[in-house]
Structure formats: structure tokens, C-alpha cells
């Protein structure tokens, strides 16, 4: 018996540490998807409820379906094309062969963001409307290369005489290919197909550029949910995605190593059947009905409200989500999307009007506008409400833990209080951060005066050593976990978080603050403005608006709906802003060329030590 060399314990520890580094975050994610708390950081017991929630969230399911449909189709098309290309190049003895091979590397090495931007530009140029088709095209385009290289690698190890032997034994070229070459390539083809499937399922960057109406994929949906706060639902669906990806990769690996056994074949077959039936299941019912495409922030409309509209009118409402006003602008500017209704924030409405991307509303078709609170009408970005009607209103303020901070908080200055050093969070948002500093200094939060902006920058620099985090997505989580005691915050997420911990307060600083209105607008490129008007009118109905608000927990300026609101919303801080504070508050406006100054100063703040 030969003596086995023992692995050094140092090496074992090192290896363990490496795996921990790789997998600890994923493990935490999976564990917390089973946590009986909205909080990501505190364990409160085991539950399946987030999985149940995820599976009753129609938007998530639709996104999952879209993702799977695209992944299945991408896999089929890319595998076919990539394999054919590999075979063609393998047999081609031309002088340009190395060049052709190099061209297949490009889609892999070119940054995804470049591919995404190039794709959307190209689709715009050839006049293709963004939708499921363009996502499919883009996915196929980047997937072919992977198939090409995996199949090429296998082909290179394949004895070309095997096919000759088949010909020699009486098989014509077609039969030789089917009986000999294809079965020998099958493991590589299957492995590359599975790889392509997971790549397509996971892709975010390229997809976010080329996705249009009816094509919000799961990663896009998850990413856009960040704007309104991450819930353990996301953990649940991510865990499922992760597990299925792992299973697929394991199967791919097995096939690559051991060849296509009967077991793998049955497994892959079952997976495929399941996927296809699920992916196509949702589409059959929607055939042939009028469709309304809505592009909106995630968690910004109650699924029950949408469902009732669909039932009442027979119209299919496709809800797509996005994660920033700038992303919305980019999509509309590219001129390749066909959305009928969008929900831009105040300052973006102004920009969209100036860019001539919106169409005037036909107010006679929106009689329910009479329920709107005048406070949210005739605002500076659209003084006559020609292009927009308010959907939600909100406010930036300060949220804090009353159990950690005893004295009442009432000023932006409290975010500069050295006693809370390391317990302060600011929004990771250039305009909001400057708004706090400018208001503290007594200036307009839309200031374009370089002198004032410099002072604001100095304030932010002075504050930086005290700040624990700049975070626009998870400030509610930071407060709930106690990692942060006081934070610049938006109202909606804090109102929700209060359900978890009543020791959470939201106040509007006396110096005045940012007022926010998100608006219902119809793009100039809308295909069904008639349905969009009908839907706007429906959303402004007091009963509908109340149901909507009670679910999403954002406030709408709907005066008639107020009596129907749940208690948390009745006590919304927006209702109790003192008149003098309201006078000092402003809507964000486009600051024009001063944006460059904001950018430079914000960068200075962010990189300061």
C-alpha cells in the first residue's frame, strides 16, 4: 500500500476560507428567504411565506415566465446557429478562418454595456420596435459565441476520420453526420445549450437596453424592485433561480464529462417540458385582446387594481418596470419602445416635454381628475397639466429610531450631529444630498449659484466622517436593523417599515424639503392613447385610488379617496406639513448647465476620505 500524502492543514484552511468567501453571501440569501421577518438582518423564525408571496405575485410570475420563454427560445436558436457555425468553420480551409474565429470572440470580450447600447441603437436605426423579439435577438447574438467555442473545442478533439470511416462503410454524408458526428458532439451541444439557457436567464445589462413592452425579464423586475425596497420575496425568488441554475450547471457538467447517459437525457427532457409548458402557459390566454403597455416603477400599482381593470374592460394590461427616471428617458429617446402610459417624476416630466416625447392629454376623457387635490396640480414642471396628471406624491425627510434617539428631530442639522457619528445614512442621490445641504444653508434646492453650491459641497464634506452609508435602496433596512439610527429618507418605504417596528419616526425638517410628484403621462409614440386615457381615468377613481394606495403605501393626491385610506396613510406626514415649511419646500427642477457643477462636487464628496 502506498502512503497517501496528507494535505497541509494550512492549505485546507485557505481553501475553506476561499469557499466561504465565494459562497457565504449566497448562503445568507438562501437562509434569509426562510426568515419570518421583512428584515433582512434579523432572524425571527422559519417560514415559507416569502415563497408563497413570490408565487402569488403576478408581476414576478409574469417576469419569470418572460425570462423562461426568452431563455428557451434563445437556447434553441443559439444552439442551432452556433453548432452550424462551428461545423462550417471547422471544415472551412479558407485563409480568413482565423479572422472569422476571432470575430466569434468579440461578443464575449466586448463589455455588455457596449453590446447593449449598440444593440438598441441598431434596432432604432433599422426601425425595429423593442419588445420580446429584440431581447431574443440580442440574447441569441451574444449566446452564439459560447455555443460556437464549446462545440469547436469538442470538434477539435474529434477524429475527422470517424466521418470518413462512416462514408467508407456505406453511409451517405447526411447519415454519417446524424449517426456519427452529431452523437459525438451531443455532450458539447447539450452543455452549451444549458450554459446559454442560464446566461439568457441571468442577463441583465444587455436585456435592460433592448427590452420593450411585454419583455420585462426576471432580473429586470428584481432590479427595479430595489427602488421601492427589497423584500424577502426577492430572496425567495433569487434562491429558486440560484438552485435551478445550479442544477442546470451540474447537469451540463455531468454531460460534458460523462457523455449523454439515459439518466441525463430524461432529466433534461423533463426540465425542458416543465419549462416550456410554464413559459408558454401564460401567453395562450392573452391572444387577440387589446393590450395596454404600462411602464412604471416596481411595487407602484396594486395587482388587484390591474386585475379588476382587465376584468371590467377585457383589455390586457402589461406592466413593465424601470429603476430610474434616466433609464426611462433613454428608452424613450431611442424611439424604439411602444409604451402607452409612463410614470415619470416631476423634473423628468419637464425634460420629456422639452424633448417633445409626450403627447397632450385629452382631459375631457379623464372626468375623474376632479377628485385630484389642487395642491398637486399646476406645478412648475407642467403649469397647465397639459401633459401630466399627478399619480403619487411624496416627500423627502428624516427617518429615525425613537428608541435610540430620545430628543425630537426637526432639522436637517440633526444629520450633521456628531453625537450620531457612524449612525447616519444619506440618500445615495446627488440632488437629494445637495437638497439637504442647500436647505440647511437656507438656499433653494434648485440653486445654480456656484458660490452656494460650493458651500453645500463643503457641508457635505464636513458631514462625511459621520456618515455610515449613502444608500437609496436599503435605508429602511439599515434603520430596522439598528445599524443606522437616523437617515435621510423617502416617505413610502418608511411608512411600510413602520409595520415592522413602530419605533420608527418620519419627520419633515423645518427648513423645507423636496416635494415629489410622480405623474401619469402618455408618450408621443403610444399606440393606444385611447386605452391609456381610459386607464388613467380608472386610476383616479376614488375607490380604485384608495385600494391602490392601501396596497402600495404611497400617497396619491386624491382628495375624495382620503376617507377610505388605512390609518397609517391617514397619519401620513405629508398631511401635516406646516404651511411655512410647505412654503419653503420645492420640487426638483432641471438645473441645466449647473448639472456639471453638481456632478463634480458630488464626485468630490463621494471620493473624499
Amino acid at each position: 500500500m502506498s502512503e497517501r500524502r496528507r494535505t497541509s492543514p494550512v492549505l485546507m484552511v485557505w481553501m475553506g476560507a476561499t469557499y466561504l468567501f465565494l459562497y457565504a453571501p449566497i448562503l445568507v440569501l438562501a437562509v434569509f428567504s426562510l426568515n419570518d421577518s421583512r428584515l433582512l438582518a434579523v432572524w425571527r423564525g422559519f417560514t415559507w411565506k416569502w415563497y408563497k408571496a413570490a408565487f402569488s405575485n403576478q408581476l414576478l410570475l409574469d417576469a419569470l415566465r418572460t425570462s423562461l420563454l426568452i431563455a428557451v427560445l434563445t437556447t434553441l436558436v443559439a444552439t442551432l446557429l452556433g453548432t452550424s457555425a462551428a461545423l462550417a468553420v471547422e471544415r472551412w480551409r479558407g485563409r480568413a478562418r482565423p479572422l472569422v474565429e476571432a470575430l466569434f470572440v468579440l461578443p464575449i470580450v466586448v463589455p455588455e454595456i457596449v453590446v447593449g447600447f449598440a444593440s438598441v441603437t441598431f434596432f432604432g436605426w433599422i426601425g425595429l420596435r423593442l419588445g420580446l423579439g429584440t431581447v431574443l435577438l440580442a440574447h441569441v447574438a451574444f449566446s452564439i459565441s459560447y455555443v460556437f467555442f464549446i462545440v469547436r473545442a469538442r470538434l477539435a478533439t474529434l477524429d475527422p476520420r470517424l466521418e470518413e470511416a462512416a462514408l467508407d462503410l456505406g453511409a451517405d454524408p447526411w447519415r454519417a453526420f446524424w449517426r456519427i458526428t452529431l452523437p459525438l458532439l451531443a455532450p458539447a451541444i447539450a452543455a452549451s445549450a444549458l450554459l446559454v439557457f442560464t446566461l439568457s436567464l441571468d442577463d441583465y445589462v444587455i436585456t435592460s437596453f433592448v427590452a420593450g413592452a411585454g419583455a420585462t425579464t426576471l432580473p429586470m423586475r428584481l432590479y427595479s424592485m430595489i427602488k421601492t425596497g427589497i423584500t424577502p420575496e426577492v430572496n425567495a425568488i433569487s434562491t429558486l433561480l440560484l438552485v435551478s441554475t445550479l442544477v442546470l450547471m451540474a447537469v451540463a457538467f455531468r454531460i460534458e464529462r460523462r457523455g449523454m447517459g439515459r439518466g441525463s437525457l430524461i432529466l433534461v427532457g423533463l426540465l425542458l417540458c416543465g419549462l416550456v409548458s410554464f413559459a408558454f402557459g401564460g401567453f395562450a390566454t392573452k391572444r387577440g385582446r387589446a393590450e395596454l403597455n404600462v411602464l412604471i416603477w416596481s411595487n407602484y400599482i396594486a395587482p388587484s387594481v390591474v386585475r379588476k381593470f382587465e376584468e371590467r374592460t377585457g383589455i390586457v394590461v402589461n406592466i413593465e418596470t424601470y429603476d430610474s427616471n434616466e433609464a426611462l428617458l433613454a428608452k424613450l429617446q431611442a424611439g424604439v419602445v411602444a409604451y402607452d402610459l409612463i410614470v415619470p417624476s416631476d423634473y423628468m416630466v419637464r425634460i420629456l416635454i422639452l424633448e417633445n416625447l409626450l403627447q397632450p392629454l385629452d382631459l375631457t376623457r379623464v372626468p375623474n381628475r376632479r377628485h385630484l387635490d389642487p395642491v398637486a396640480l399646476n406645478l412648475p414642471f407642467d403649469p397647465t397639466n397639459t401633459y401630466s396628471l399627478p399619480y403619487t406624491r411624496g416627500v423627502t425627510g428624516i427617518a429615525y429610531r425613537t428608541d435610540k434617539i430620545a430628543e425630537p428631530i426637526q432639522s436637517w442639522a440633526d444629520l450633521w450631529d456628531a453625537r450620531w457619528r457612524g449612525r447616519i445614512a444619506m440618500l445615495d442621490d446627488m440632488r437629494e444630498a445637495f437638497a439637504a445641504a442647500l436647505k440647511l444653508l437656507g438656499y433653494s434646492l434648485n440653486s445654480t449659484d456656484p458660490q452656494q453650491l460650493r458651500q453645500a459641497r463643503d457641508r457635505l464634506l464636513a458631514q462625511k466622517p459621520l456618515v455610515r452609508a449613502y444608500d437609496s435602496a436599503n435605508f429602511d433596512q439599515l434603520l430596522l436593523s439598528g445599524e443606522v439610527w437616523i437617515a435621510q429618507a423617502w416617505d413610502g418605504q418608511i411608512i411600510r417599515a413602520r409595520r415592522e417596528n413602530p419605533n420608527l419616526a418620519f419627520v419633515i425638517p423645518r427648513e423645507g424639503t423636496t416635494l415629489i410628484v410622480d405623474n401619469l403621462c402618455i408618450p408621443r409614440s403610444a399606440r393606444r392613447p385611447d386605452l391609456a386615457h381610459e386607464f388613467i381615468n380608472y386610476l383616479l377613481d376614488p375607490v380604485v385610488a384608495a385600494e391602490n394606495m392601501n396596497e402600495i403605501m404611497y400617497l396619491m393626491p386624491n382628495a375624495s379617496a382620503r376617507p377610505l385610506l388605512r390609518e397609517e396613510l391617514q397619519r401620513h406626514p405629508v398631511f401635516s406639513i406646516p404651511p411655512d415649511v410647505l412654503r419653503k419646500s420645492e420640487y426638483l427642477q432641471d438645473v441645466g448647465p449647473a448639472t456639471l457643477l453638481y456632478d463634480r462636487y458630488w464626485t468630490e464628496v463621494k471620493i473624499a476620505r
Partner: protein
Amino acid sequence: MATATSAIRVEGVTKRYGVVTALEAVSLEVERGEFLTLLGPSGSGKTTLLRVIAGLERPDEGRVYLGGEDVTDLPPYRRRVHTVFQQYVLFPHLNVYKNVAFGLEQKRLPRREIERRVAAALELVRLSGYERRWPHELSGGEQQRVALARALVLEPEALLLDEPLAALDLQLRKEMQRELKRLQREVGISFLMVTHDQEEALALSDRLAVIAGGRLQQIGTPREVYENPETAFVATFLGSANVFEAEVMARENGDALLALCGRTVRVSLNGRRLEGSRAQVAVRPEKIALRARPLRKTDLVQLEGVIEERLYLGDATHWRVRVGDHSVLVTEPNRPGSRAEAFRDGQRVFLCWARESIVVLSQ
């Protein structure tokens, strides 16, 4: 077509790859039931010729006939010849049974017929019971037999074998040589085998064809080619030979009078034409005897030389003897009490051989 048709007939086949000529005007016939070997160094074009016959390459000029039928324009899968490839090229994803049945399935024969013939073929190559094995589980020799069965099961007009034994180790190679010969006799079809191993060629062939530089050098029975090589290349490639330059003194009655290393020798031309005043002759090293003293007998050729080198090879000893400008190779079997053992380097010796051992080569 009146004459008995040969299994394979190649007429004036030329094959070029760019500027390289792989085959130049090669003509060759393989009789029915004959074992013919193509012998040549690597790069001589022998494998190309095999591929042209199989249909895997198209000749630039010339025709290929199988059983009298012109198949030059037929694809490989329409030709009734099958190939045993170098390293066998078994289908790795098919088991032994499926490998052997592959060609029969292409003919869409009934399943029972296929089963019967596969069983018979496996029995022929002594692999009955190996049906469910996979190629990677087999030894080199067993893979070789599967490759043979796979081709033979189709009862081809002729079997083409490309260096079939090259991948086997020496012991197995000898065994498989006998096996190949047995198989060929049993099935009675023509074998055309490519090899660069001269011993293999001599042992197996009914006839052998020496090929070099894309040209056919000589074709004949092993004895004919060995004993009476036509060119210096054949003489030295098939076995070894001492090639001497000689001056032609006179010609009479199919004989020639040559001046060889200062001696005048009468040799038979064996029907070969001899032009000009100079000639090349070859003498096989084993036909030369070493003597310490000259013999009195006059019909032997005798040359005086000095021993340069001795190489003991177990079954024989190789000597290098300096005779004038030539370094002559002499091999003697090692028999007990062989006098040659006594010779030392630098010793003066006499080389003797019979006049019949001299072969006049064509220029």
C-alpha cells in the same frame, strides 16, 4: 472486359496538392483473392493511393476500377471496398456490435440478417462474446479485430488496410500478421495493405509494390523484388544492399562484362537493358562471405578489404569493410564456431560472393 477482371485496377492516377505531387501516373492491379502490399517510406503517397481507391480523395487524372467497373466518379459510400484505418477509428459511442453492424444498417438489411452476419464476422475475428463491450475497453489488438470485422462483414470487393499493425507492440504485431494472413485466406477476398514495415510486407504479401515519391518503383512477388530489385532505391529500402558503380566492358548474349573494384566480372542482365558505359549493381550483405585468405575457386568474386567496424546484433553480426572507395556491409549469422568471430578491427580480409548474387540495376 474479356479478360478475368481484377479486384482493383488503378490506371495512371495522379494526385496533386497545390505544388506537391502526391501520386504521379500510378497504375496497379490487384487480382481477386490476392494480398498486395504497398510498401514505401512515409510521404511516399501510399496512403493517398489507398484513399483514392476508397473514394476519400479524387484523383486529378487517371481512373479507378473495382471489379471491372469504373468507380472514379462514385462517392466512397457507393464503392464496394472498405478500409481498416490506421488506429482503427472505431466509433467510440457505439459498442462492438453496433460498430460491426454499422455498414449493414446503412444497407437497411433485416435485423435478423444483420445479427447473423455480425455474429459470423465476430467469430471470424475471434471476438464472439464481445458484442456489448465499448471500444475504449478493448486492447489494441482487439480494436484491430473489430475494425477488421466491421469492414469484412460487408463482404467487400477488396479490403484496404492502412498501416493496420503500426499501433501494436512488436509481440502483438507478429501475432496479428499471422492472423491477417489467416483471415485473408479464409475469406478469400483481395487485401490491399499499406505499410512502411518491409518485414511485414515480405511476410504477408502475395505481391508487393514499392512506392516512393509518388511513383510506383517496382511490383512483384516478395522474392522477385527482394532478389532482383530494379532500382537502387528498392534495393536499399527493401532490406539493405551494397550498391557499386561499375564500368561496362562488353555485352554478349544477355550477359555483361563489368569492371568492378578492379576486377572483371561477368554478370547476367536478367533481361534488363543496359545503356551507356556505366552501370550500378547491388549485392545483398548476407550473400557476402568473409574470409581470412582468398579462395582458389575462380568463379567467385573476391575483393580484398580492411575491417572498419563490427556490430553484434544477437542473431547476426554486421561488418563494415573498407574496399577502395566503398564501405561494404556484410552480415553473417552467428553460428557456433563461426570463423568470423576471430576478426578484429583493422584486419585484412577477403570478401567473396557468387556472380549470381550481383544484380544489375536500372538507371
